[in-house]
C-alpha cells in the first residue's frame, strides 16, 4: 500500500480522507455548486449564515438540501463579521441551526479592501468560543507567532491565508507557512488566496494538512473541471511532501553513470 492510501487527518475528533475543503459561495447556481463540490471530493464544506429571504420562491432549493449535513461536514463561517461579538453571535446561531453541531470557521475581518483578519478581535473571539465548547477552525494571517497563540487558546485547526481572500495570488510567503507547519501540533490548513492547481500543490508540499478554497473553483470558467484539478493537485502535493523531495543543487548532477562509457 502506498503511504498516501492510509494518509488521513484528524480535526477535533473526526478523521478525514480529503485534504481539500471547499466553500459554497460565488457559484452561478446551485447545480453548478453541487457538481463542483461533488467532483472535488471534499468532505468539509463551508457555508455562510445570513437572514432568511422571507417570501422566497418555494421551489428554489435550500443549500442544505444540496449539501446535506448527513453527507458532508458543514463548516459554518463568520464571514462578514468585523468584530468578535458578531462572530460569536453567528457561531451560536449556526450551532442552533445545525442541531448542536459545534465545528465553526472563525474569521473576524479588519479591512474591506484586503479582507485581512483583525487579529486582536480574532484572539478574543477564539477564546470565548473555545470556552463555550465550540471547535474552532480559525482564519488568520501567516504570522507564525499568532498561529501558535491560536493553537494554545485551543483552536482545533489554524488556517493561515496564502494571499487575500478571493485574490487568487497563490502562496505569497512560503517561508512563513512552512514555519507555521513546523511549529504546529494542530492541523494547518491554507485558507484563502489559492488561484490554481499548482498553488494548492505548493501548499501541500510545504507540509500543510489541507487547503480551503472557494473562488479558485467557483470563478473558474469550468468549476467542475477545476474542482477535479484541485483534488489531484492536493493529492500530488501531499504525496510529494510524504515522499520527501530531492535536495536542490546549484549545479548539474548526471543521471546516467560515467562508468562503462565506450566513447
Amino acid at each position, binding site marked *: 500500500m502506498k503511504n498516501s492510501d492510509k494518509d488521513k487527518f484528524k480535526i477535533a475528533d473526526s478523521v478525514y480522507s480529503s485534504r481539500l475543503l471547499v*466553500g*459554497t*459561495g*460565488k*457559484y452561478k447556481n446551485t447545480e453548478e*455548486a453541487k457538481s463542483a463540490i461533488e467532483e472535488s471530493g471534499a468532505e468539509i464544506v*463551508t*457555508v*455562510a*449564515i*445570513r*437572514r*432568511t429571504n*422571507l417570501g422566497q420562491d*418555494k421551489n428554489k432549493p*435550500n*443549500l*442544505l*438540501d444540496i449539501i446535506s449535513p448527513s453527507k458532508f461536514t*458543514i463548516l*459554518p*463561517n463568520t*464571514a462578514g463579521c468585523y468584530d468578535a461579538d458578531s462572530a460569536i*453571535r453567528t457561531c*451560536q*446561531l*449556526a450551532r*442552533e*441551526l*445545525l442541531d448542536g453541531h459545534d465545528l465553526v470557521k472563525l474569521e473576524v475581518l479588519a479591512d474591506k479592501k484586503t479582507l485581512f483578519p483583525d487579529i486582536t478581535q480574532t484572539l478574543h473571539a477564539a477564546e470565548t468560543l473555545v470556552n463555550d465548547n465550540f471547535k474552532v477552525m480559525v482564519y488568520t494571517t501567516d504570522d507564525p507567532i499568532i498561529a501558535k497563540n491560536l493553537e494554545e487558546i485551543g483552536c482545533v485547526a489554524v488556517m493561515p491565508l496564502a494571499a487575500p*481572500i*478571493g485574490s487568487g495570488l497563490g502562496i505569497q510567503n512560503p517561508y512563513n507557512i512552512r514555519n507555521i507547519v513546523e511549529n504546529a501540533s494542530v492541523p494547518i490548513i491554507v485558507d*484563502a488566496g489559492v488561484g490554481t492547481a499548482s498553488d494548492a500543490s505548493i501548499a501541500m508540499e510545504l507540509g500543510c494538512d489541507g487547503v*480551503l*478554497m*472557494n*473562488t479558485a473553483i467557483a470563478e473558474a470558467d469550468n468549476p467542475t473541471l477545476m474542482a477535479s484539478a484541485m483534488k489531484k493537485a492536493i493529492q500530488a502535493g501531499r504525496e510529494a511532501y510524504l515522499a520527501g523531495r530531492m535536495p536542490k543543487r546549484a549545479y548539474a548532477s548526471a543521471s546516467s553513470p560515467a562508468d562503462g562509457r565506450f566513447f
Partner: protein
Amino acid sequence: MKVLLNGSSYSVKDNCSLDWLIKNLELDGKYAVEINQNIIPRSQYRTKKISNGDKIEIVQAIGGG
C-alpha cells in the same frame, strides 16, 4: 402589534407565539431564530410569546467560503 423581522417592520397577531409566526411565514428547510439577540431553541418555539417591538432575526445557511 409590530415587530422588526429581519430588519423590516412586520405585523403580527397580538400575544402570538413564535411558533405561530414561523407557521405564517411558511419557512422551508433549516433555520435558527434570535429574539432581541437571544437565541430561541427550537424546543421553545411553542411557548415563546412575541412582544410588541421585538427584534427577530431568522437565519439560514447560504453559499459562502
